[in-house]
């Protein structure tokens, strides 16, 4: 696989998804970047913005298996991971592990914040370790594996906000915004007429192998040492008790309880590499980093009570951090 081929496949998938999803071009690209970087994505947005449709279109375009789990308060971990069933085979009865919906290439955890923490944590091991342990037996997940979770930011009644440890496992957190009037018009045209559009399948047979090569290629993208240092400085700047020479930005000191973990830096670098390949480049530039800083870090900043009281968002803090951290030392 060479970079040109990567770009071509990436572009075709993107195009197919955008045949279904109107607008949200940036969301589509970020989801694809997260996928080829081997990460998981958390989509946050109001109901009816096409989150579920996006994931379904992605799975169709990639030609991968897709499972959807609607998270509810009474959802149990076994409902996700799977359970043992008493099965009778040739007159013999024994327990067999029945795989849950987590065993798919693409898993949509719809409204993940409605399930209890116990159930939410059931997907933790699968997301990070890419394996599931049930009844003392460990099952490997198929590759590629990606969890796309959605959550509704407005209906907080009866919800269980994701714990920080679980949030940190998501590669990107993407905010799905409302469509523009033009986009809404296009949505109406596409969805209120006969013959709803559907994403075409880009990768058919051997999709997993192609995707694996693409994922490998992404990690080979060149990145200059000064750019890596810039990412490190960005992460360091989000620490309220930071050891930065130039001091911690006031916003970080005032509104952040915990800064980004090292996973944030990993997400930025890999996301930037994916963005570079998607742009047809074999090296990371500062623009690539800037493109992925917000989705990579916004869910990794743990805001304090004052920030919530003053309605300060992580994006606002990140903006000031990016402004204050120089690109070159």
């Amino acid at each position: 696989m060479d970079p040109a081929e990567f770009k071509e496949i990436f572009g075709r998938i993107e195009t197919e998804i955008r045949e279904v999803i109107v607008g949200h071009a940036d969301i589509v690209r970020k989801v694809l970047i997260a996928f080829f970087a081997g990460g998981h994505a958390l989509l946050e947005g109001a109901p009816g913005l096409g989150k579920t449709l996006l994931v379904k279109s992605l799975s169709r375009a990639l030609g991968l298996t897709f499972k959807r789990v609607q998270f509810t308060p009474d959802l149990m971990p076994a409902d996700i991971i799977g359970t043992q069933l008493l099965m009778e085979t040739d007159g013999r009865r024994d327990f067999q592990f029945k795989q849950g919906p987590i065993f798919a290439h693409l898993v949509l955890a719809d409204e993940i914040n409605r399930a209890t923490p116990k159930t939410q944590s059931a997907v933790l091991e699968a997301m990070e370790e890419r394996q599931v342990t049930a009844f003392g037996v460990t099952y490997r997940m198929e590759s590629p594996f990606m969890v796309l979770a959605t959550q509704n930011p407005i209906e907080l009644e009866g919800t269980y906000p994701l714990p920080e440890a679980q949030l940190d496992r998501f590669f990107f957190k993407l905010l799905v915004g409302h469509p523009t009037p033009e986009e809404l018009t296009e949505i109406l045209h596409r969805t209120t007429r006969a013959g709803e559009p559907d994403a075409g399948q880009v990768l058919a047979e051997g999709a997993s192998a192609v995707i694996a090569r693409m994922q490998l290629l992404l990690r080979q993208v060149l990145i200059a040492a000064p750019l890596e240092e810039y990412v490190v400085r960005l992460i360091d700047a989000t620490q309220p008790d930071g050891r930065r020479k130039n001091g911690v930005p006031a916003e970080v000191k005032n509104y952040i309880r915990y800064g980004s973990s090292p996973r944030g830096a990993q997400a930025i670098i890999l996301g930037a590499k994916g963005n570079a390949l998607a742009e047809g480049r074999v090296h990371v530039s500062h623009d690539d980093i800037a493109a992925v800083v917000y989705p990579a870090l916004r869910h990794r900043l743990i805001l304090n009570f004052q920030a919530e009281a003053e309605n300060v968002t992580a994006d606002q803090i990140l903006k000031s951090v990016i402004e204050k951290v120089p690109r070159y030392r």
Partner: protein
Amino acid sequence: MSVPAGPQEYIDLLRRRLALHALWQSGLVFLPPLLAAWYIVFFLYRFAWLDPDAVMISGAAFLIAAAALTAVRFRAHAPSPLATARLIDETAAAEDRFVTLATVEGASGPAEFFSRLNSEAVALARTIDFQEHFPFRAGRSMVNSIIAALTAVVIFQLAFELTPPLLPARPVGKLAAAGQKLAGDLRFAELAAALSAAAEKLEGRSLSAEEKQTILRDILNQLDERIAREKARGGDISTLEEVAAEIRHEAKKNEESWSVTLPFKIPSLIPFRIPWIKQPDGEGGGGGKGSGGQGHGSQGEGDGAQKLEQKNGGGSGMGEQREGENPGGAKMQDGPQRAAGSEEKQQSKKTPDNRPDAQSNESRQLKDGGEKEGRKAAMEKKGDAYGGEMKYRAEAKGGLKGDRAIAGAKSGEKMPARFAAPGEKPTGDLKDKDLRFVIVQLPEEESGTASGSREEQRKATAGALPSANVPLARPDDPRSAAEKQMLPLEYRGMIR
């Protein structure tokens, strides 16, 4: 210029160019302060505030400091490969391609990635024209440096001109110390006073090199004369010889620095005269002196004359005659002596052949030597440095005129048939007025305590004054008379 083959060559080429720019900029930033510092050093050197050694050392130190600062600044501003790559990236919109190529090692990625990145970078770099995109620019710091250097020079000049009392005069320690040493011996009290007075005069900032050398020469002459006299008497001359050696050494040491003149004239920055500030001599100015020096001199001499007048109860026509018509020669004496000298110069100038008058004036002047000596000592004890200073200036610049006037008078005159022997009274064909050269010995006690009116002194010393018209031999001639008159310095040029 050959076209670079690869991105790394572009980076190296631009880096060398920018390094050269940084070196020039660093050098030019520190050049104006260096020149300003050198200017100040040479200024101080010109006015003999600094020894040649100090000038060499400080000049070299400034040069080394400037070179070191240039090197430090160059190191700080010399572009690194990374900074150069960044510049190319920004100029060619290369999206960090050059930074990546400059920092990523070949082993850290696929070879095809590097070859692709290289070709992309070279294609973008071809749009760059180094001459156009990276020209040499004079930085703001260079302009600031020039402004700061000029300001420093101007402030120095103004401080020098406006606040001379704040600036330390160069001590002439050896001379003063020698004076103190001799003052311990009553025999040399007069010589000690002369040494102290000379030391004070040498501290004057506006004295030229010639004037300073003249002062030192005269002091040495006095010492040599005194040594010869003491040797003839069989007295102890060890102290005198020691002092003479010290002063000779000091004179030799300073001769080089005093003899140096700047190739340009240092102009005064103040376009008007400030009455309380001593102006430096205007070299080559009209009337034998610059106008500033003349103005100051008249003030100083006026003071001196006033003191003499109060003491002696006599003396008239001071200053006016000098200022009026013959500024070159008239500055040679103080008080009544100066008036007499002025008349003499005027007469010799107007009627060169009218020798009797001139001779009578001269002989009168010389006969009054004891009185003048006493007056001079008294004046110097009063510390009238300005008056003394101007006398020496007058001798240096106006003395030549006086010599020429006398020489001119002599050339048209009949020489006497014979010379009178020492102590012989002029009789027959030898007249008093024909005596041109005299050897006068004043009793020590009288010259040391010269006071009272001129007539009283003349009466007291007339009987003891041997006279002769034998031409004076040079002081270093062994045939020269052992006893010589201690003449005021201002007469030297005239008598020679």
